[in-house]
């Protein structure tokens, strides 16, 4: 029950009259209830076409014997999978890939984390340092690989020239089966530690200050603060960093392709590289498809496990 206005009442509303009844209320309701699909559908359709359909397609191809030329495509069931799993080279490249994942991920993680911790302690030139330190991640992996090939050349590379200044004899890291894999991993770490560094730094910036300040006041040692406060509080961030690094390391292709092309003696061959070769050089499409499905299963399993840990901590969607 309103009182009569005690100042001059506003004139009649500017609003349009009752003319905008929608064509059909039911239609309107329907579109309202499902309006999100209007926004999502185009993207979703494209993603289904460019991701899901290819995977299904690959699965299909892997059950037949298909080559570039083949006119007939006999159904062979799981034979391609069997052959792939029984193939030494496939197993070898899977193990190499595992090696990359373990060492590249842990290496870049430790280095990136350390740099994130260190850069908090500097003042002047912080921006410049950060800018320089993230350069590797912006470079195309193929460029990184080629560049380090040049750096590591046994006779003319800068690395050996530099070592030579200190009287250390020439190293042939990329050439030896025993060191090539490690060398490629080191280059991979060189390229990807900034990812960890950036993620951890961003994560640390979001940490509340209070617990750290009170711990300092209470005289807790830096190491204990790091172990009992920093690490647990950064858990989701750390998981994100590890997850992203893992999937990236898992699909390593470009760097190896240009640095060693899988050699010497297949010691640096990765799954991606091996499957590429199988399909496009050796003309065994369906076997490569089977291999890629196996690869997808493994990475799916790994990331599903990591995601489960992650979603425990992070709200998504």
């Amino acid at each position, binding site marked *: 029950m*309103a009182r009569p206005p*005690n*100042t001059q009442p506003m004139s*009649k509303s*500017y*609003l349009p009259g009752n003319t*905008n*009844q929608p064509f059909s209320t039911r239609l*309107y*309701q329907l579109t309202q209830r499902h309006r999100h699909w209007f926004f999502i559908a185009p993207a979703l359709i494209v993603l289904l076409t460019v991701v899901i359909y290819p995977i299904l397609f690959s699965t299909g191809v892997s059950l037949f014997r298909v080559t570039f030329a083949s006119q007939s495509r006999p159904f062979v069931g799981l034979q391609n999978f069997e052959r792939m799993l029984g193939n030494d080279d496939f197993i070898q490249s899977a193990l190499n890939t595992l090696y990359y994942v373990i060492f590249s991920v842990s290496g870049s993680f430790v280095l990136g984390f350390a740099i994130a911790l260190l850069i908090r302690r500097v003042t002047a030139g912080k921006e410049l340092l950060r800018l320089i330190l993230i350069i590797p991640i912006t470079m195309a992996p193929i460029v990184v690989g080629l560049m380090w090939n040049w750096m590591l050349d046994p006779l003319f590379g800068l690395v050996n020239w530099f070592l030579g200044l200190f009287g250390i004899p020439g190293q042939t890291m990329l050439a030896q089966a025993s060191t090539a894999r490690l060398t490629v991993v080191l280059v991979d770490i060189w390229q990807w530690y900034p990812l960890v560094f950036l993620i951890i730094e961003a994560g640390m910036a979001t940490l509340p200050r209070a617990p750290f300040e009170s711990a300092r006041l209470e005289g807790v040692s830096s190491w204990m603060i790091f172990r009992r406060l920093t690490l647990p509080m950064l858990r989701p961030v750390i998981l994100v960093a590890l997850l992203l690094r893992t999937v990236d390391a898992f699909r390593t292709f470009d760097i190896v392709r240009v640095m060693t092309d899988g050699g010497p003696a297949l010691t640096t061959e990765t799954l991606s590289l091996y499957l590429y070769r199988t399909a496009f050089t050796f003309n065994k499409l369906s076997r490569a498809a089977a291999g890629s499905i196996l690869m997808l299963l493994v990475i799916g399993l790994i990331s599903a496990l990591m995601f489960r840990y992650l979603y425990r901590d992070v709200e998504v969607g």
Partner: protein
Amino acid sequence: MKVVLKDLLKRFANAERAAVNKINLVIEKGELAVLLGPSGCGKTTTLRMIAGLEQPDSGRITIAERDITDLAPKDRRLAMVFQNFSMYPTMNVYENIAFPLHAIKMKRKEIDRTVREVARLVNIDHLLERSLRQVSGGEAQRVALARAMVRRPEVFLMDEPLSNLDAKLRVQLRTEIKRLHQDTGATFIFVTHDQEEAMTLGDKIIVMNNGDIQQVGTPHEVFFGPRNAFVANFVGTPSMNMLSGRIVADEGGYRLRLPGFELSLPARFADGLGKMKSDGVIWGIRPEAIKLVSAPGENTVSGQVELVEALGSRDLIFARAAEQLFGVIVDAQESVPVGAPCHLHFAGEQMHLFDAASERSLLNDKPPQSPHRDGGRLCKDGDIHRIATNSPP
């Protein structure tokens, strides 16, 4: 414009219960109705459904007999003010206010006239050329008000417009909204979780919880005649003292057995108590209704003062008696030091009783009529005290 909500239901995806559970509500033309409730009670969802920002799962909404349930927000002829100032940061104050007028293709000259007129109404005509970065929170909300008014809508929806402001500004703007309501004569629907804001603003308060309307009434009805334990507990600061107890029939009446003490109940509960199926009740009394008396007696418990909070002219005392903590409001002059013994008297006519099972009030369903219905909208706490003593038995 009369706003009617009929069987309005909204359930969000992945939610266990309905956000708004088939509510029915009538808001009369020119009324200032306040939707009050804790966060998540469905009040904002209700408002957003009226605005058309959420689509109800079922039920209808009509404004002035016009069914708007299936209209786009822009066609509902209403305005809305949001909690977080909802400014358009790429536009300056003037453009912000003019923005709604562009939608109805008004002529530039008329836009200019209207914008300035509205800006004057909310006292921001000196800010028009400023960018939003140069505008304070209170001013920003005035801009929002101006933007809402500029199309001269017949229904204003306000979604906690004051809660992001500091206390002083809040009071100031509250008055201004009140004045605006009177000046425009439009229907206002105001959402808040702040029951003091609801009391001071509302012609009608709609208390909501868990998607249901708990009570509809004037501020006094809601304050003095809570229909259920939730409303009793939610409305009023400091909140009502509440204890679970059992009813024992006594000769000629009922007694209430509470942990540690017993009370005799006034006759006005007799009807309600007679209909009860079990003996469990929730007893409640407002801190303002507890009296400190000098000696123990009927409906009195003895205890000790544990804590005193100064509220200004009055003190809020927490006294422990019969192992329970009671909040009591007393005049500052009559305050008692911490540790002092005290006797708390519970006046029978100010007690509330609720069925423990249904949490419904045991008084008859008709809420007590406030004797101050016309003048009491802005009444002070002292008035409430006076009214309380005058409420009918």
